[in-house]
């Protein structure tokens, strides 16, 4: 029997963790002076649910063989990952203030060689789901009990490699793979529909042979239900299309493409933190 370190927090407790993550995201980005708040905030609830409810991970043994794996395909949302890993105890919380600074283990994009808890290095969009598929395939070959979780951006779906991975994971029946699309509707140059529409997203994944669940990506109960359902699916990978709001939780950042890759100034940080209570 695999060692189980699942925390299994309740929805209320997970929501409290997500709020703490959002505060840390704002604080670390302000200190760094650059980085990506919009897509970090939109993914916070999903990642809180994964790390504090669903996944079998243990900060005391970051390389535990049977741990569930996590791939942040949209690596620019590193602050979301760093906040959740810090809250889980993978490294001291104050380290988040070294984000993006010379010599820090908190690189601009997640670096598996530098930071415990990061299963693969990401940052180049489109590559994550392939690596997640490889991990899921490896797990199947070894009859390992672990599951693999991944979070993609909706703009990221424009990369052809995503669809190569989609075919691969379905073809090899990787039912130990469960991915999310953080469907916040925005990319850098604007609305995903105006730049290069990946819609209809859910239909595409269905057509590629995935089990698809659509949820509100900020409703913790819905995230739990989707994860529960995904665990019961046999012979197919699962894609959870999570409808989210870019910049969620900070009114002046919500649905603003301009907050994709701009760090808050100190006064903006204060205004944001005043809302995140």
């Amino acid at each position, binding site marked *: 029997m695999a060692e189980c370190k699942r925390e299994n927090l309740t929805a209320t407790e997970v929501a409290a963790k997500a709020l703490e993550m959002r505060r840390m995201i704002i604080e670390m980005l302000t200190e760094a002076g650059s980085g990506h708040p919009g897509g970090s905030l939109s993914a916070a609830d999903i990642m809180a649910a994964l790390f504090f409810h669903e996944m079998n991970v243990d900060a005391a043994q970051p390389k535990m063989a049977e741990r569930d794996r996590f791939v942040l395909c949209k690596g620019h949302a590193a602050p979301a990952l760093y906040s959740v890993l810090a809250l889980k105890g993978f490294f001291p919380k104050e380290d988040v203030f070294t984000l993006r600074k010379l010599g820090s283990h908190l690189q601009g994009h997640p670096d598996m060689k530098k930071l415990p808890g990061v299963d693969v290095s990401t940052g180049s969009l489109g590559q994550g789901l392939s690596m997640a598929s490889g991990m899921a395939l490896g797990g199947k070959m070894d009859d390992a009990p672990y599951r693999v979780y991944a979070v993609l951006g909706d703009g990221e779906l424009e990369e052809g490699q995503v669809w190569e991975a989609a075919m691969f994971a379905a073809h090899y029946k990787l039912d130990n793979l469960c991915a999310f699309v953080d469907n916040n509707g925005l990319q850098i140059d604007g609305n995903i529909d105006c*730049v290069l529409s990946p819609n209809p997203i859910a239909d595409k994944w269905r057509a590629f042979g995935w089990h698809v669940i659509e949820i509100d990506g900020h409703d913790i109960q819905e995230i739990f239900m989707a994860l529960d359902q995904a665990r019961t699916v046999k012979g197919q990978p699962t894609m959870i299309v999570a409808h989210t709001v870019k910049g969620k939780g900070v009114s002046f950042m919500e649905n603003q493409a301009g907050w994709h890759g701009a760090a808050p100034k100190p006064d903006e940080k204060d205004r944001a933190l005043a809302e995140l209570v």
Partner: protein
Amino acid sequence: MTEKQATRDAYGKALAALGQENKQIVVLDADLSKSTKTADFQKVCPERFFNAGIAEQNMLGVAAGLAASGKRPVVSSFAVFATGRAFEQIRNSIAYPKLSVIIAATHAGVTVGEDGGSHQAIEDIAIMRALPNMTVLVPADGPQTRAALKAALEHDGPVYLRLGRLAVPTVYGEEEPLTIGKGKILKEGKDVAIISCGLMTSVAIEAAELLAAEGISATVCDMASVKPIDRQLVYSLAAGCGCVVTAEEHNIIGGLGGAVAEVLGECCPVPLERVGLNDVFGQSGKPQELLDEYGLTAENIAAKAKKAISRK
């Protein structure tokens, strides 16, 4: 050398201006138009700007098709993604059939800064240089970027134009025409020849000043045309000064240092020292901190120059 401008900024402005004159120019970008500055072109020629989305491989393939139907496509993304993600599309759809596509890639080198090693192209010159038919231009400053874009537009065949994010000192007071295959002597000296490209050219000039203060006279040669390289000039500098230092914001393997080493090895073996990244990836940090961290400084060029001289 007072004014500062990022070569990506100069590129955006030049592209917008040239785009209004030459209606064959079509610009493609991969969801980075505000960073690569192709948004400047989009503003004035919206009907000839196409956002390809986050799909660099397809973008380079589409550019090949546009070139094959008589357009003058100019495509932009960050250097890592333009040359890396779409490498084989560049190889087989663009370089192999020698189609006139301009790949104007910004955010090259470690001066990308805080985004970190995943986003800092330190191998792009090497991989583009290895492709037959490909021309590689690495301008030193804003005025030379304009000249390089003009030269690329007049050239028959694919061109890789390497641009930076960081504002850099202006080396060329005025825009001088850039001739593909020709280097430029910026300062004449007799003890050592420093051959540089990109933002390291202004650093090389500083290094020559440091050396002059110690009584060492250095030639500074700007080799913006990394490929084809000016073999004749490299040969005459080596023969004249007796030793060479190269300086580039790139891996010391395969870039300008590699190109110069090839020429020297074949025609005029003199001591060579290469300043660049020592076969390592970059990391997060402020641009200037990273230049210091990896020895991309005037002090290091001067030290390497003295070492090269001592090896004569």
